[in-house]
């Protein structure tokens, strides 16, 4: 029964593909060189109409040979449904994608990375069976598994790895995470395919050099090699007919609605073999209340990131569990130190000390988070909170003293401080629409800082506009901005706080401190973690002193998970981390 389902739905997907392909068909073939495009067409590049049709047929054919091979265990079967707010931008196309949900699906669902992290964030084998690092840390050689098949039947090999790397360093691709390869040798010597399953990279010794291979899913060379780099973004591979090599086979994508995947029976036995669930469906639902309703009525197995206030309803339910774990994003208020009223670090320190961040975490996040004093998440090996924990704690009197010392005093008795020339200490805080927590933060700061004589004006701006206002090196049209960063495991704040980034996109704060510059220059090249730790500690202390941002908090991530779904592990590595091990209780299928 189950087996026949498997092929049937693959064929169904095939049908859908044909229809879709007709659309993109003449679109893709003759009109791809539309108004936005370079004067090359996908048809010439070998894609277009036949691509999806052919690929889907190949997947069907390859998978049909596994029909009837059902592992005899109770755990196999059922459909896991994950619901989240948005669509998966760029789909399975790792060449151009950097979206969090997209990379989760690339890395854990449909495609594979060379290595994965274990729970202690040490690299372990995945697509790469093993790897060697030369003694001088300038060469890394990966040995690729020889039993991983693309879903259309081709073997995954070293050429795919080399291909993925070459695409990523090709400027025309516009691979978003170029910083991964800063110290990799991007010349012709940089990558070498030793044999079909061995590939070697050369680089300058640097910290966490293996990290990019945890984050970059390997792409199929045999399908995409002919596509010009600049055209990759328009290739139907990403959104219409992805072909991966991971534990789940792509079945169907319905725009703005759902992605359906099917267990891959050919997934290597050593890596766990065929996933337990028959099918995995990702649904995008934009309204939190609807998501919660779906979860509570068992329409969803997992609700990704409910709002903090929904946590209680989830805890109250018998059918659903709440998972909570620290994550690696943080919320901050960035201060533009180019503005006269924010140029003095004492003012920025006062703004931080005048805001009760602990109360905000407790009230707004329902305690699901940790107050941040720097950019390094508490679970990271480089984190050292000992020095900075209490320095920036909430203290209105300390904040007042700092403002007095900086020359801001309420001279006319209107409740707002002025400087010697009579300018009011008035600061606007911008935030983007559609993010309630950020709006709340701006409004709370407005209320709390009014008590120490600082006038805050919360200003909502549409996201795209906000980004261009704060990122334009000439204008920097903001005083303060509420925004969030996701931290990668490989830490590097050069773009944020190094004086060389002053006119860069992210040099929002306008920080210019030689001592910070020195550390930021030094740190990326320290390979040994034990040698790096004291430097990171020094860096964190300097950040606290400088206060380029009021670091707000690291929110814990929460997810609602149906009690019928077993073996779910979620942590800072992501929600889809062990999706191949999820299994559904028999009575919930």
């Amino acid at each position, binding site marked *: 029964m189950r087996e026949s389902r498997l092929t049937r739905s693959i064929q*169904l997907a095939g049908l859908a593909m044909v229809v*879709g392909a007709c*659309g*993109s068909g003449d*679109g*893709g073939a003759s*009109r*791809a060189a*539309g*108004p*936005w*495009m370079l004067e090359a067409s996908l048809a010439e590049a070998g894609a277009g109409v036949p691509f999806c049709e052919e690929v889907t047929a190949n997947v069907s054919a390859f998978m049909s040979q596994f029909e009837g091979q059902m592992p005899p265990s109770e755990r196999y079967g059922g*459909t896991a*449904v994950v619901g989240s707010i948005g669509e998966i*931008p*760029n789909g399975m196309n790792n060449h151009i994608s*950097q979206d969090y949900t997209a990379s989760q699906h690339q890395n854990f669902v449909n495609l594979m990375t060379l290595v994965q992290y274990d729970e202690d964030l040490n690299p372990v084998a995945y697509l790469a069976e093993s790897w060697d690092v030369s003694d001088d840390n300038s060469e890394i050689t990966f040995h690729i598994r020889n039993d991983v098949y693309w879903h259309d039947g081709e073997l995954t090999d070293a050429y795919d790895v080399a291909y993925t790397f070459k695409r990523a360093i090709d*400027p*025309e691709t*516009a691979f*978003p*995470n170029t*910083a*991964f390869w800063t110290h990799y040798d991007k010349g012709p010597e940089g990558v070498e395919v030793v044999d079909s399953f061995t590939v070697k990279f050369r680089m300058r010794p640097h910290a966490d050099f293996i990290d990019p291979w945890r984050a970059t899913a390997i792409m199929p060379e045999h399908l995409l090699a002919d596509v010009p780099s*600049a055209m990759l*973004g*328009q290739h*139907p591979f*990403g959104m*219409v007919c992805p072909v991966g090599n991971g534990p789940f086979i792509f079945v169907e994508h319905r*725009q*703005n*609605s759902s992605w359906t995947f099917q267990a891959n029976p050919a997934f290597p036995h050593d890596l766990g073999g065929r996933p337990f669930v028959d099918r995995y*469906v990702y*649904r*995008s*639902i*934009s*309204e939190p*209340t*609807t998501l919660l*309703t*779906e979860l*509570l*009525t068992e*329409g969803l197995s997992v609700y990704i990131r409910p709002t903090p206030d929904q946590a209680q309803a989830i805890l109250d339910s018998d059918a659903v569990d709440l998972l909570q774990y620290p994550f690696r994003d943080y919320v901050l208020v960035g201060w533009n130190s180019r503005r006269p009223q924010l140029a003095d670090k004492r003012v920025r320190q006062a703004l931080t000390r005048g805001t009760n961040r602990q109360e905000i975490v407790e009230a707004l996040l329902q305690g699901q988070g940790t107050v941040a004093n720097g950019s390094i998440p508490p679970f990271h090996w480089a984190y050292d909170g000992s020095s900075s924990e209490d320095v920036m704690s909430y203290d209105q009197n300390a904040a007042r003293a700092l403002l007095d010392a900086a020359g801001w005093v309420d001279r006319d008795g209107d409740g707002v401080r002025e400087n010697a020339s009579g300018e009011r200490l008035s600061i606007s805080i911008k935030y983007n*629409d559609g993010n309630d927590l950020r709006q709340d933060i701006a409004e709370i700061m407005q209320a709390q800082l009014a008590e120490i004589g600082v006038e805050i004006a919360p200003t909502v701006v*549409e*996201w*795209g*506009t906000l*980004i*261009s206002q704060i*990122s334009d090196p000439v204008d920097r049209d903001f005083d303060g901005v509420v925004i969030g*960063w996701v931290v*990668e495991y490989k830490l*590097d704040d050069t773009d*944020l706080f190094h004086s060389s980034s002053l006119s860069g*996109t*992210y040099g929002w704060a306008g920080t210019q401190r030689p001592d910070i510059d020195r550390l930021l220059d030094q740190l990326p090249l320290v390979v040994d973690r034990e040698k790096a730790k004291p430097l990171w500690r020094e860096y964190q202390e300097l950040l606290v002193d400088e206060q380029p941002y009021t670091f707000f908090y690291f929110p814990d991530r929460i997810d609602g998970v149906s009690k019928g779904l077993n073996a779910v592990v979620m942590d800072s590595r992501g929600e889809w981390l062990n999706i191949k091990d999820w299994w559904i209780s028999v009575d919930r299928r």
Partner: protein
Amino acid sequence: MVRRLLGAIPLVLGIATIIFFVVNLAPGDPALRFLNPNMTPEVLEQIRVNMGLDQPVHIRYVRWIGALARGDLGFSFTSNRPVLDIIKELLPNTLVLSATAIGVAFLLGILLGIVQAVRQYSLLDSVASIVGLFFYSMPSFWLALMMVLVFGLFAYQGQWFIQFPPSGMQSVDYAFLSPMAKVQDRLMHLALPATSLALVLAAGIARYTRSSMLEVIRQDFVRTARAKGLSEPVVIFKHALRNALIPVITLLGLYLPFLFSGTVFIESVFAWPGMGKLVVDSILERDYPVIMGGTLIFAMMVVVGNLVADVLYAVVDPRIRYD
């Protein structure tokens, strides 16, 4: 008629131009959506080039209009698909939803309006007005949320005899259902969103039907009809209704654009993959080609809808002539 249809071409061109410039002159840079600290400025520039944003606005306009003439709406920035493909996929969903809603709303509204007019100032009239107004006055997203909570969540928790799926167009196991079950599945998923949308519309239609019915009922020819001894239903439905429907038909043309805003909210709440939400999402994400393509399609639908309403108008009211 053909002339009017041809006359619609400059109209659509005008709309397309407005759309293009409104969208492209707005501040903000679509490429910045891809911003991330691991990215060098060169990459950002390359993304702009790949999107075609490195060209000046007037060049982009000429290219866009040129492509439009060939039926090409360009590529989505965020979805990496031809805009036309996306629209082909989502437009039918919106049409199903709004056609059902409009159908239900007109049926409900006209019936209610007739009853109210015939029984003017009765208790029934007042109650119907107030209940209708109640739904009309509610923000539609709120009504939709209530629907989700009541018929989705509470019905499930209370194990009511009827429960509706809170969201989506079909179940996740739709592909494995029998044909009959498929139809039922689709209808069940359609029920809540279509009702939410229809309730808001029906009140307005009922009002208009009532008003125009009241006017017509008091006119001489209706009196004549009654005097001839025709039965009341014949008088109402055969003589009065036809005349009373004239202003109601204009509503059809009026409601088409309204449906866009209506569907935005309904589609958001019920996770209905349709055009309204597509366009609003793409505004927030600055996906220019999708904004322009989607808006244009909507605009064209409205233009066609208005033409149809005009024709209907002439059909039912012979006093109006089109040359």
